[in-house]
């Protein structure tokens, strides 16, 4: 455990030194401010044209927050892949791994440490950004998103799945090949998820099956859907009035599957890293 923490801290320090952390935080803050300003003006118009506080007004606010969260979920996945894609393969290519792996530490500790460091950074970043826009919305309009905390954690979980996938790829593939693979997998889950949605609205079973299959292959999109489902009022979901409306929400079984999937990826990454020559 001590070794895992050393590598987690090293990963965190590297992000801080290489300015990735500051750049991401600065841009994240800019994103929240931009969102807040934009929301403020839309809010003014919406209130002016509405007849008092009602369910449609709340649905409008909800749509705005969901749009913001959708961007954050995408950014989270991008960051997860970009920060981790070369964390193993890059160190093998540059030979920096040799002085580390010949210390009296298990390779699993190196891998888990890197995963933990990146996972903590990603989760904090997503919670910070998502929390920022949820709070900005609340401060301006008084609208509080339902299930905000579990929703944010699900968005972070989606990024962690992609992080684990990209770390696994990095134990065998070159940095570029791994990046291509990770984004292809994300794309597959993304398209599969939308096919499933459309299929559910049009009652096309084949389309739904394709979606389920893609969710089993890469469950990242299914987790986003789960987050979107719990953070929207039930009426919005049922009526399908928003692009984020969930015709079929993934079940708890899917959540458990995704958790097992992620743990399996990490275990496989550890096995693969342990058995390769450095």
């Amino acid at each position: 455990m001590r070794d895992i923490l050393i590598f987690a801290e090293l990963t965190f320090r590297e992000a801080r030194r290489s300015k990735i952390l500051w750049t991401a935080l600065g841009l994240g803050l800019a994103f929240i401010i931009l969102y807040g300003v934009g929301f403020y003006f839309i809010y003014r118009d919406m209130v002016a044209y509405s007849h008092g506080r009602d369910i449609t007004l709340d649905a409008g606010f909800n749509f705005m927050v969901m749009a913001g969260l959708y961007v954050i979920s995408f950014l989270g996945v991008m960051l997860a892949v970009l920060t981790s894609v070369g964390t193993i393969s890059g160190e093998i290519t540059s030979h920096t791994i040799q002085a580390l792996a010949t210390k009296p530490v298990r390779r699993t500790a190196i891998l888990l440490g890197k995963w933990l460091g990146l996972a903590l950074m990603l989760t904090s970043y997503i919670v910070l950004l998502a929390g920022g826009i949820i709070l900005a919305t609340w401060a301006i309009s008084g609208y509080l998103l339902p299930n905000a905390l579990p929703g944010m954690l699900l968005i972070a979980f989606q990024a962690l799945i992609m992080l684990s996938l990209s770390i696994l790829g990095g134990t065998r593939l070159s940095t570029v090949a791994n990046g291509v693979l990770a984004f292809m997998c994300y794309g597959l889950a993304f398209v599969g998820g939308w096919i499933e949605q459309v299929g559910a609205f049009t009652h096309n079973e084949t389309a739904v099956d394709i979606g389920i299959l893609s969710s089993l292959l890469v469950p990242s999109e299914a987790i986003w859907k789960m987050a979107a489902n719990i953070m929207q009022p039930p009426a919005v979901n049922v009526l399908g009035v928003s692009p984020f409306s969930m015709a079929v929400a993934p079940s708890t079984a899917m959540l458990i599957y995704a958790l097992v999937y992620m743990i399996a990826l990490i275990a496989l990454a550890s096995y693969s890293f342990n058995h390769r020559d450095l």
Partner: protein
Amino acid sequence: MVQASPAIEAFGLRKVYGSKVAVDSLTLTVERGEVFGFLGPNGAGKTTSVKMLLGLAQPTAGEGKLLGLPITDPRCRQRVGFLPEHFRFHEWLRADEFLDLHGKLHGLPKEVRARRVPELLELVGLTEAAERRLGTFSKGMLQRIGLAQALINEPELVFLDEPTSGLDPLGRRMVRDIIRHLRERGTTVFLNSHLLSEVEITCTRVAFVASGRVRHITSLGEHQDGFIQVDLRVGKIDEGLVAGLGQWSAQVDVNTSTNTLTLHLSDESSLPKIARWVVERGTDLYSLSPRAMSLEDLFFSVVGSDISCETS
């Protein structure tokens, strides 16, 4: 029990990459306190051997032990230091942070690290550069800090893979002095090199490696063996003469065109006996010229036929 075990034991270590045999079968024992040279041309399998011993590469077959523990157990590297051939480290770390990190990975307590880090920076002449990032270091400075890193845990066994490749003459002398200092402290040093002179100056024993195999192991310095070559020019070479000389030299090279025989002797004490024996059996002896064989001569006589790459 662990103290009494040799520093390095390898039994039939073998590494095959696809169809290429990098290390055929490495079997050797390095006792504690030795400065052991691992000498061979480029591509002989030296680095792969070290990688297997240090757990970086998985052997295709065979097994090994460091300080009595199997090489598959990370704990065997607790008292081991390593300077890799490609001394590349995290460029964003400062020199002192880098040493501190490697101390942490060895599990050294904070106060020990606080003492060791400045000590080592001074040892490798980098005290002034303690707070500079490794990204700003020259090749020579990186090799120095890499050497310091290899010594952070006051190791009982140190692997140095081509430790002077990036260094100027001053740096090379520094490495020699450090190796001498380690030897005085009783630390075992495994020196991987293709520089004959470097090995000749620093090592107590040397293995010659070629095409993935140890061809010959010999002691250096005071107990130098297999190092005298004697040319005998005689009137006539006959079978009895060659067979008779075999009692002193396992290998007798015959050159009939110049009537010369070349013997390989472990020391010069047998020279008078050889001269007497040749004369007494009635052979005309025109000259008997012993010459000490340099490490280079020995190297070429052992691995010469396998060298396809450069040797320097």
